[in-house]
């Protein structure tokens, strides 16, 4: 795993308000990193810090394993909050401007990218006449124009309708698979991240609460039966040999989680007891990711 974006105790203070606190992000090459947080959590601030648009109060950022400089921008495409465009120019002309600024000689880059984001038929429309969704697409096109290695997107589906959201999702998936682009995207909608991300970071009130591979998060948040037992080693033996249960995990404080046979909790309990295992508690966990997210972000709120 090659780290591609890393932040080290990154903080940004506005007045007395810490918008981002000691953030340590790790994004690896190939990740689709979902940066999840409620409104005002510090997502856009973090993205601006990563892009050197604002300067950190403390801490620092590394891109491609080095200190970022303007040359890093040749390898990064980004879309930060409301996308802008020159209203007097057409979609195509706006992209032409970007092409020249990036020093790309071939004009084909523009037509290819227009095609990629499905804007070819609208290429001559003036930017002043565009809907939010189309502007968002133009912003995405601008970010993709130079075939970047990293795509940094701040709430990329803002203003899009459900069909548009799906289209962007499929596009991002394709970019990740075909071009092996690393995608760092923020969102406040879990469902959106869930359908795409391979790794998730949850930010709340400027703090990174959790950073985890999506598969692991799913595993952690599966429905399971949790037994608290006197002898976990023997219990696992019983589970495997007597009950043919293989899908379980052992945790601290003598707890064992079972992910299958959930409906048979009383049978499992009875057999454990007959095998001289003390079961001090049984508990069915039915958290889903939504609950997990809400729990994480509200627990901290109560402490604050």
């Amino acid at each position, binding site marked *: 795993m090659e780290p591609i974006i890393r932040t080290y105790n990154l903080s940004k203070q506005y007045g007395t308000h810490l918008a981002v606190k000691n953030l340590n992000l790790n994004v690896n090459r190939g990740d689709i990193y979902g940066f999840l947080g409620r409104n005002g959590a510090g997502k856009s601030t973090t993205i601006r810090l990563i892009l050197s648009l604002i300067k950190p109060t403390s801490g620092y950022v590394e891109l491609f394993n080095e200190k970022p400089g303007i040359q890093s921008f040749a390898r990064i495409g980004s879309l930060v909050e409301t*996308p802008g465009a020159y209203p007097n120019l057409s979609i195509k*002309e706006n992209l*032409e401007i970007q092409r*020249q600024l990036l020093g790309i000689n071939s004009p084909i880059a523009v037509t290819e990218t227009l095609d990629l984001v499905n804007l070819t038929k609208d290429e001559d429309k003036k930017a002043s006449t565009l809907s939010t969704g189309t502007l968002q697409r133009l912003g995405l096109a601008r970010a993709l124009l130079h075939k970047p290695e990293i795509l940094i997107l701040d709430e990329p589906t803002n203003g899009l309708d459900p069909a548009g959201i799906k289209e962007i999702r499929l596009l991002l998936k394709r970019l990740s698979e075909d071009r092996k682009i690393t995608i760092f995207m923020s969102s406040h909608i879990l469902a959106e991240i869930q359908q795409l991300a391979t790794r998730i970071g949850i930010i709340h009130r400027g703090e990174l609460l959790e950073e985890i591979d999506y598969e692991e998060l799913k595993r952690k948040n599966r429905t399971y039966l949790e037994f608290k037992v006197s002898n976990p080693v023997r219990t696992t033996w019983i589970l495997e040999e007597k009950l043919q249960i293989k899908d379980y995990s052992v945790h601290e404080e003598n707890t064992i989680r079972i992910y299958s046979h959930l409906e048979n909790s009383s049978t499992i309990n009875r057999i454990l007891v007959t095998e001289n295992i003390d079961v001090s508690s049984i508990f069915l966990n039915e958290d889903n990711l939504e609950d997990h997210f809400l729990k994480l972000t509200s627990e901290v709120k109560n402490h604050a």
Partner: protein
Amino acid sequence: MLRAIQVELKKLKKAPMIWISFLGVSISPILNALIFYYLKQLFKDSITWEAFLIQSISFIAVFIGILLFSLTATYVFGREYTENTIKTLFTIPLSRESIIIAKLVILLLWSLTLVLFAFLITIPMGFIIRASDLSLTLMINSLIQYLIVGLMLYALLPIVSLVTMLTRGYIPAMALAGIMTMIGLILLNSDFSIYFPWSIPGIYTIQLTQGEYLPSSSYMIMAGTFLISSIANLTYVRLADIDK
């Protein structure tokens, strides 16, 4: 750098501000011609080309120039904020400084084009009202004077661009230009006018009509104003947080 300058030119395509500025700068020669025409009717005097040409640019230097040129500057800089493009502009492999320099170069070209345009439409007006004593040297000298006024008005623009960037909008910068025009006008009758950057372009043309010339200190003040404010622009963008 060249790239950035070309791009700045492209961005102005079909921009309404282009037409506004050219329209604005032509008001003065047209008004000037009308006044001279009226005077000619009144006094049956013949009008010299020399007086006519200087008067035409003098209107610009004294009254509308600062506001009009400031409008172009605040447009070139302010649009990146109002059109939400600044974050795109500052996430490309070009330094922020070079982007600002490109904008200042474009403003220089724009400023010189505007005075050149004023010169070009003053000429036919002069023929229409039948001004007298035309010579090639006069034309060349006058053209140089127009360009000097253009440069002087341009030298005031980095202050406008700095205020535009600091406030991320047009209004404070234009208010500043308005106030400075007023102060410049008030000072025009004082000895201090040759030292105040916003009255120097005006007093330069007024003195020309009287066959006088500015002291070199005035030129140095203009150059100093330009240099210091340009450096302030570059320092600002290097340090600025782009959090909008």
